[in-house]
């Protein structure tokens, strides 16, 4: 018996001309380069999840991960196929989404809890521990519109984490709140897992998938293309990234642009193109560009994005290297001796600017950072260790003890 079964599930989205798509939605359509009235977010996807198992689903943006999550949580229905769910599901698609700003923290716990399917008596029993876990005990009777964003998010997670669900759906929620709270979230999730809760985890964050999941699926353009251990799937994912390692332009080529980024490539230590980098190892990236009208005060920047599209770092040339670009083509190298990014999936982009005006911007070249030099925390900082002094102290007791053992 499985907790969750997908039998040849497909989901088609229809896009009507005016009212239908939101900007994010049409953006996603753009990914497929199709502007027709419909597209298949997932096609013929089948998989099962055993009770107590933690399944990770990874894939690029628009691969269909979120659609799978929405189908499992029954927010939307499949176009074809069948989904069987055994047990109670708690979906954490966006923490605190069910909150009403006018209501107090306590009232929102009732509201949000019952939206997630909790009974009132059950909420009564857990109210204190939820407020305690979220650290808002003293603000229980304050309207949540007066809460800080941190409190808001913590309360949202606390409710879901106390839901006693059989199946927990997680979507990048590990990336909320401050570091301390994140730690507690992860602890709580591991605790739930140890208690036998089935987990479906959808993420770009390969490190979390590897840590949390027993098995993993790889989605690409709505199809399930690989299934295996997280380590196997992550390496497949990186292979996929290599195929996709072409510059994806966000806008159509504008002939009036005085300059254009023509290529952006990462090189490995031996100088061949790669999409697999290692934490703490040297990295080189080459930006190639064409200049059709001279630029006098040019700056070239390289940006790194983590999952959720937030910029982790952006480096630009102005200060280090003032650029005067005559008409022609050129290339510039970006390099660092020790990559600071921890293992995970990232995207990089680069842009050319003239007097702080952006001329051309390309995003996103996907790449994976694999474990290299050991790092715990948010980034690897280039460092060296040097031993300053060491004096050996040997106690007499120890000497005697060791002496006694000898026959």
């Amino acid at each position, binding site marked *: 018996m499985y907790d969750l079964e997908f039998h040849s599930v497909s989901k088609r*989205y*229809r896009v*009507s001309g005016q*009212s*239908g798509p939101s900007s994010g939605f049409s953006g996603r359509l753009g990914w497929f380069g199709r502007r027709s009235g419909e597209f298949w977010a997932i096609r013929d996807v089948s998989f099962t999840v055993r009770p107590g198992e933690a399944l990770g689903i990874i894939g690029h943006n628009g691969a269909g991960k979120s659609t799978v999550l*929405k*189908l499992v*949580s*029954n*927010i*939307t*229905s*499949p*176009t*074809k*196929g*069948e*989904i*069987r*769910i*055994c*047990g*109670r599901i708690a*979906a954490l*698609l*966006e923490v605190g*989404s*069910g909150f*009403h700003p*006018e*209501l107090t923290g306590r*009232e929102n716990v*009732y*509201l949000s809890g*019952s*939206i*997630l*399917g*909790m*009974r*009132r*008596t*059950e909420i009564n029993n857990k109210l204190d521990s939820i407020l305690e876990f979220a650290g808002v005990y003293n603000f229980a009777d304050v309207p949540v519109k007066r809460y800080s964003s941190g409190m808001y998010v913590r309360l949202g997670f606390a409710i879901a984490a106390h839901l*006693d*669900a*059989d199946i927990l759906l997680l979507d990048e929620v590990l990336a909320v709140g401050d570091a301390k709270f994140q730690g507690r979230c992860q602890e709580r999730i591991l605790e739930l897992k140890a208690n036998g809760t089935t987990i479906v985890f959808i993420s770009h964050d390969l490190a979390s998938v590897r840590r949390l999941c027993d098995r993993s699926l790889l989605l690409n353009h709505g199809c399930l293309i690989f299934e295996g251990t997280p380590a196997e799937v992550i390496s497949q994912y990186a292979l996929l990234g290599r195929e996709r390692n072409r510059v994806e332009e966000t806008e159509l080529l504008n002939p009036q642009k005085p300059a254009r980024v023509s290529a952006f490539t990462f090189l490995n230590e031996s100088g061949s193109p790669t999409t697999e980098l290692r934490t703490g190892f040297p990295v080189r990236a080459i930006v190639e560009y064409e200049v059709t009208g001279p630029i006098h005060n040019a700056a070239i920047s390289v940006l790194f994005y983590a999952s959720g599209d937030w910029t982790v770092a952006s480096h630009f040339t102005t200060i280090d290297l003032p650029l005067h670009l005559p008409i022609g083509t050129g290339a510039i190298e970006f390099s660092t001796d020790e990559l600071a990014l921890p293992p995970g999936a990232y995207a990089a982009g680069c842009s050319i600017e003239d007097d702080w005006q952006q001329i051309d911007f390309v995003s996103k070249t996907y790449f994976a950072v694999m474990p290299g030099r050991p790092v715990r925390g948010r980034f690897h900082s280039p460092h060296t260790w040097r031993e300053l002094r060491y004096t050996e102290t040997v106690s007499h007791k120890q000497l005697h003890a060791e002496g006694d053992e000898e026959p």
Partner: protein
Amino acid sequence: MSASDERRRTKIIRPATFSPLAIVRGVRDLIHYRDLLLTLTMHRINVRYKQSALGIAWAVLQPLLLMIVYTIIFSVVVKMPHEGAPYAVFVYAALLPWTFFSTAVATSATSLVAHNSLITKVYFPREILPLTYVLAAFFDFLIASVILLALLCFYHVSLAASALLVCPIMLVAFLFSLAIALLLSAFQVRFRDIGIAMSLLLQLWMYATPVVYPYSIVPERFVFWYSLNPMAGVVENFRRVILRHEPMNMGVLLPGLIVCLLLLPLAYLYFKTAEATMADVI
């Protein structure tokens, strides 16, 4: 009580089909989510009155002000027949069920669109949203009923045992409001025009219902068509049992009741079919 104590429910999600079985499944699901229905309804009532200065008085104010206006127009300016009872009581007794209906329909029509962030992020039976607005409107109706009692005392109109018949009459009004609420709210997700057309529609509808005039002046040959509007039967009978102490007039209620009983399951089915892709188009 933990999840393991409860028997694990197996849920099967398939593409939406327009089958009567969906009603059974839907109602079962709704019962499972009864606590949410309760919490959301209380929340609805709470929020409505929490941030307004007059608070609960708003429930009373709307029918009361309309009563004053209509009394001035139809009893001082124009002489409208009003079947014995003073016009103020005559019109208020009709405004009471009518306001319930119009509030329920107007507020619930936008219920899904107003909660789009919820709909795209969590699952719960979506009909709970329009249903809570209908329930909140019913709460308003109960509050506003107190004024009717006060008016009856003021004008020395006594109540008879027939007044108890308001319960089945209001049940019809409730079921019909629910059917319209389900239809319009699901419609609104696809066609936003409903919101704009709403006030006009309700205004016209009020004149197709014996609110400001008595049912008795409706010409005989129109009676059948007229009584297809369930609200006509509701309002006329509400007045009969409260003011005139007469038994219900089934002739005017029955066609509407049949319409209502046919419409509700169809509306629910339409709603459940629309629900399947609601999160995609909202």
